[in-house]
């Protein structure tokens, strides 16, 4: 049975499950590094997921759907940026409002466009990037099956998340952009003094996080499921925030933590197939990612240090 569980498809599924978390978590990292808390990742992801389906449906192109998802995430991010940077509203409260707004907007538009609540029609999905025929026989066949499933079977946004994790991580610590971003979150007054616009920097960070959360939504609807169901993000935005904290506010760490949550999710899905053997109600499997999130936060938070100016509106003076 163990060999059935620890099969290549488990690890492939872990990478797939990690992707929406990772995209949102990296967005969260960029946003929080600039000093703005973003608990609205959940809502931006949900709205992106929905608008992705709408975009794909009206154009017939999944790629156009990805674009509308990205714009949808950014549009809610603009609200968050305006509220929290320009108006200096409490960032957590503004994020909550956006989460409720996303629930309301997607539910409302669902009924306006489809005439019923629940789930949308199915749309075209993004295809896997690679399609290579390898050996199927013998030892070589087994090795190839692992490589093919784990590394080569994925859709575009899965690879994008990995590229962003590596590239973003490097850029955060090795480029002018990264230095400026970190300065905004650690000591905005100093950044301001040397001529970095705090407002512009924070706006672009919040908008980037919205774009990434929108892409996370697109991954759910346009790569994984093919349709939208109300509330389908199921607190992934909050788990992504936890992944960002566990990853110590770095893109690479965020991806790694997302991979842990993705693996837990993939494992619980897989274990449910063995319900005849493991006699545990399915609800206990479904709980796993949420329980793990609490455990991870409990274990790591005391030692992880958040950006110093996080959550504090900046007043030029």
């Amino acid at each position, binding site marked *: 049975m163990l060999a059935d569980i620890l099969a290549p498809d488990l690890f492939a599924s872990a990478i797939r499950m990690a992707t929406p978390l990772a995209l949102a978590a990296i967005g969260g990292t960029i946003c929080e590094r600039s000093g703005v808390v973003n608990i609205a990742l959940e809502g931006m992801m949900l709205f992106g997921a929905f608008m992705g389906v709408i975009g794909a449906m009206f154009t017939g192109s999944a790629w156009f759907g990805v674009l509308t998802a990205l714009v949808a995430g950014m549009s809610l991010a603009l609200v968050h940026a305006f509220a929290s940077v320009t108006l200096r509203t409490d960032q957590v409260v503004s994020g*909550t*409002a956006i989460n409720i*707004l996303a629930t309301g907007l997607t539910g409302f538009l669902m009924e306006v466009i489809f005439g019923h609540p629940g789930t949308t029609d199915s749309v075209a999905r993004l295809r896997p990037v690679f399609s290579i025929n390898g050996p199927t026989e013998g030892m070589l066949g087994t090795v190839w099956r692992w490589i093919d499933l784990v590394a080569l079977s994925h859709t575009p946004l899965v690879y994008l998340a990995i590229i962003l994790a590596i590239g973003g991580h490097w850029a955060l610590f090795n480029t002018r952009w990264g230095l400026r971003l970190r300065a905004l979150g650690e000591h905005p007054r100093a950044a301001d003094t040397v001529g970095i616009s705090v407002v512009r920097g924070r706006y672009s960070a919040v908008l980037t996080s919205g774009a990434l959360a929108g892409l996370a939504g697109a991954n759910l609807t346009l790569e994984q499921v093919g349709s939208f169901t109300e509330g389908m993000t199921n607190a992934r935005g909050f788990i992504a925030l936890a992944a960002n904290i566990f990853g110590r506010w770095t893109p690479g760490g965020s991806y790694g933590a997302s991979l842990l949550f993705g693996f837990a999710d993939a494992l619980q899905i897989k274990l449910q197939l063995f319900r005849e053997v493991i006699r545990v109600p399915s609800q206990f499997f479904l709980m796993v990612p949420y329980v793990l999130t609490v455990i991870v936060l409990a274990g790591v938070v005391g030692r992880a240090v958040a950006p110093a100016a996080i959550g504090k509106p900046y007043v030029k003076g």
Partner: protein
Amino acid sequence: MAEPSVATRGQKIAHLLRELAVPVVSVMLAMGIGSVIMLVAGYDPLVAFPAMLKGAFGGGRQIGETLLRATPLMFTGLAVAYGFRAGLFNIGAEGQLFLGGLSAAWLGIVLAGLPQPFNIVMMLLAGAAIGAAWAFVPALLKAKVGAHEVITTMMFTYIGRYIVSWLVTGPLKAPGQIPQTSQLPPESTLPRMHDLFGFLAVSRVHLGFVIGVLVAMLLWWVLKYTTLGYEARAVGLNPWASETGGISVPSTTIKALCISGALAGLAGVTEVMGVHYRLHDQFSAGFGFTGIAVALLAKNNPLGVIAAAILFGALSAGAGTMQLEAFVPTKVIFIIQALIILFVAAEQLARWIIGRTRRVGVEHAS
């Protein structure tokens, strides 16, 4: 403490009006934008809002329905408000509410045959206790390692909902096809208001509404006049100064989040005892989340929560009529809710708009 002791009645009224201005303007702005959204989507707000008003306040039965829907929002609103006063954001009231409902659905059957007043008291106490217990782990993690309560209470909401889902489909499931618990015996339910007071119009509103008002008044008193409330407010305003002043921040944090959880638990109890008489896993229409809007609109004042809960209760009660007569999907009330939160939170918005218009005015003049 905030008011000067020599304030005249006129000054007091002026102060109250200033306090009320932001919430009132926020609600109006939100409804205005809601109207624009309706227009864009092809509905007529001039039909929708009157229909909503009729559905919420059109008669005795409608007013009763508004108060019925205000009841759980009052409890969750108080829960979130009390947390906010102590600087804590209990975004997981929904989960505590589910656990409270679960305890009532179970205990109500166990206590069958005992006198109704006894059952009501016991079930309320048990629901509050389990709501507090459900908030305890996030509270402890917040106090000891600083794990953000927004994430942990949200995770506990999902964990709680899965536990309830398991119990109503498994161990506590009533015979039959539907996943729900058995119906409570009459002695384990809250009586309807018109049964208690014959002069009231027949409606579904139950004793839970009165209990909610009493709890709101109690909480107002606790915050204003007790050490418990004082410490919570002090920590909410400035944890560092409180610590220096001899208040234990961790213990105050734990107490405050558990009290918040207890209040949210009561919302689940009164819904089960007064409305459904049993538990199924869809028994809350997001009351825990709407409680956030209620608390913010009330500016975290327990007495303000009563009014804010009635407003959101009216939106909810009127939404059905609005859908019937103007065909607007009821979900529009969530959009209005979100906008109300944004406008209330962004008090700066008014100042920003005023600043803008002034600047434009100056440019025109020059």
